[in-house]
């Protein structure tokens, strides 16, 4: 069940969500804002039920999230008919990856995709025998696996982490802390950028990312990371560094996924979540913050 700390934060999120919904429906009833807030209800609802209540359910929840993101990515990238079989094995690799996370086999979890899949998927290509386009496809598939399966699965491994000695909070609270700060970082970057943003950071890739937006969010997330550190075993200084890692990592993840979309020539990666685009658009920052934050915690405490 949910710990007191996590319950308090989830309750606070719920109140904020209700306030935002009432505000939008009464004061600013535009279609875009309504869609956005409705999707937030869905995201937070699924996240709470799927990931917060039970660790085993969380494994399935995060594995399914990986699957949806990988599928969106595979749909977007150009592929040959012979690549279907390679992609099929890429989908299948999600199951062992989350199994290793679930049983806490750290060694296999950390090498399954970067070592085994990396070495063996090209061999599947050899067996199919289509030489033209080999390097392009192998790189695309492996890159997708690293981002959407390996990267995201750190959430699953993190949620199994037991509480550090003398602390009452463990993996579930760490995941909540990370996801909350990552999403808030996205929103704060957008809000700061909208209100005072002038200098563009990467105009060619993502024109609405500004220096002001980034710095504004960076400072806010630093403060929030310290305020929410009761969810973690961190000292206030460790929490401040964690906030910096999350804010910086989230920004990089966001613009890297934008880069793919520019390369392929689409604006949103899908329409599963009205007002947000697809799953990729929602997990883009998490893909970066998760492994970075995980290894920070793992180095410090486990």
């Amino acid at each position: 069940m949910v710990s007191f700390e996590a319950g308090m934060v989830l309750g606070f999120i719920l109140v904020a969500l209700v306030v935002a919904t009432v505000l939008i429906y009464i004061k600013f009833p535009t279609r875009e804002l309504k869609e956005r807030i409705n999707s937030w209800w869905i995201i937070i609802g699924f996240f709470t039920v799927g990931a917060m209540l039970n660790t085993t359910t969380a494994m399935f929840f995060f594995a399914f999230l990986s699957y949806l993101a990988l599928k969106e990515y595979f749909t977007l990238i150009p592929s040959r008919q012979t690549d279907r079989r390679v992609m099929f094995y890429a989908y299948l690799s999600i199951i062992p990856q989350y199994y290793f996370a679930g049983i806490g086999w750290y060694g296999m979890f950390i090498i399954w995709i970067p070592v085994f899949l990396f070495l063996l998927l090209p061999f599947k290509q050899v067996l199919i025998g289509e030489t033209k386009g080999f390097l392009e496809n192998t790189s695309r598939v492996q890159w997708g696996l690293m981002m959407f399966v390996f990267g995201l699965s750190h959430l699953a491994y993190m949620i199994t982490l037991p509480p550090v000695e003398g602390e009452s909070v463990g993996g579930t609270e760490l995941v909540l802390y990370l996801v909350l700060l990552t999403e808030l970082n996205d929103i704060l970057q957008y809000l700061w950028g909208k209100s005072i943003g002038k200098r563009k950071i990467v105009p060619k890739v993502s024109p609405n990312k500004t220096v002001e937006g980034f710095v504004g969010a960076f400072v806010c997330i630093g403060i929030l990371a310290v305020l929410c550190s009761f969810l973690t075993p961190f000292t206030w200084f460790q929490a401040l560094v964690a906030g910096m890692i999350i804010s910086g990592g989230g920004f990089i993840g966001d613009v890297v996924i934008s880069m793919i979309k520019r390369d392929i020539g689409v604006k949103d990666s899908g329409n599963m979540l009205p007002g947000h685009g697809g799953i990729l658009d929602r997990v883009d920052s998490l893909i970066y913050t998760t492994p970075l934050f995980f290894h920070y915690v793992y180095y410090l405490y486990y």
Partner: protein
Amino acid sequence: MLKKVFFALFVRPLVLIISGVHVVGKEKLPLDGPCIIAANHNSHLDTMVLMSIFPLSNINQVKPVAAADYFMKNKWFAWFSQNVIGIIPLNRRPTKEEGHPLLGVKKALQNGDIVIIFPEGSRGVPEEMGTFKTGIAHLAKEFPSTPVIPIYIHGAGKALPKGEALFVPFIIDVNIGEALYYDDENNKIFTQRLEKSIKLLENTKA
């Protein structure tokens, strides 16, 4: 009943969740018959996708027209096609004594069913459109008040191409166009009009 259960427990989860369908222009899809759905054809998935975008409560009304030589080739397959999928068998090479090949389809339209027809007549090359047959024009002429809905399906040929048994999930785009009606023209011109509207849907990016 069998059809509803099969779609609720197997087809819809497979098509809508495992693969995922992205529908553009859902408001142009009539929920009640009679109407004719005309779509490009690359994969067995096409039929399943088109049947899944209708509400489950209407599923018994939705009937795909399918080649008799393929779907009725043995007893078991014929039973499955007719009772679980609910196809209207169409003889691709009709003989005189069997009567008009479109008789079954006409009966369904008179019943107020939603009929799915693939005007290319066969699945053909993956993700490429073949030439259109004039069957739909015949029907539209006889039922001038029945709407013909042009639909372009993208990606089903990638997920399950002709001749492959392995299904690999990809998100499938379904692009629905404005209804067409027969308009005192000849069958050839109507067929061209239909072909053009589906081609247009192919090129309008969702």
